[in-house]
């Protein structure tokens, strides 16, 4: 039997699939992130060590991948919720587009923060000459 009413999105497989893919990425990344924060909070990681770990280029690359998975998971998760509870088509489109803009801004801002220090050492013009 084929379902005729597919819901507000009219299609859903890709969202469903990428939600799972990003979930598996976060499954690995988030315990590391929160573990670091808790250990720092308890005073087990001094500034020098935290700086050394998180500003290493390998850690920065993983941070970018984590950021990608995080924004993807936020987008797919909130999209499903909005499609379920915002019933007017106009309202749904408005809310989803505003959300997309916020997420894009967040992604750009965070990736800038992640790579900022490398940019400084390359003395990149838009990132500020020190």
């Amino acid at each position: 039997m084929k379902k005729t009413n597919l819901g507000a999105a009219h299609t859903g497989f890709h969202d469903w699939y990428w939600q799972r893919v990003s979930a598996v990425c976060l499954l690995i990344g988030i315990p590391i992130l929160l573990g670091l924060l808790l250990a720092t909070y308890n005073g087990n990681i001094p500034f020098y060590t935290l700086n050394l770990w998180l500003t290493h280029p390998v850690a920065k690359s993983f941070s970018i991948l984590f950021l990608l998975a995080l924004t993807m998971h936020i987008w797919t998760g909130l999209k499903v919720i909005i499609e379920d509870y915002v019933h007017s088509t106009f309202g749904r489109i408005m809310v989803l587009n505003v959300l997309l803009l916020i997420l894009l801004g967040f992604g750009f801002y965070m990736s800038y923060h992640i790579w900022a220090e490398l940019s400084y050492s390359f003395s990149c013009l838009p990132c500020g000459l020190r």
Partner: protein
Amino acid sequence: MKSSSQDKQVLLNAAPISPRLSIYRWRLTMLASIMHRASGVFLVLVIPAAFWLLLTMAHDNTNYMYALVWLQGPIGTFLLWLTSVALFYHFSNGVRFLCLDAGWGESRTMMKTSAKLVLASTLFMAILLAIKI
């Protein structure tokens, strides 16, 4: 489309497609699902902030000191506890959902048992973290 015609369409399709809290009877598995959404929305607000906080702390010594003092204050401690509990719930229930997607534990009793397991371990974790933090 007006909402009344949408309601009629859903009824005609036999299986309602969106969660209708006023129609369904409350069950443990449904509570687990709703709480997954609620904790997810909460984490959207907090986890990006935690990520930003950690990176900011890692980039500057003075930022590190400011953030640590704030984190160890009452607001920071409470937020860290709440985030950890919400994250633990979303995390373990997410693993449960992934297992269900893979086709493991799809029977009614297994779904109920796993929902109980997730809720109970979250309660345990909340108490443990309240003592530890």
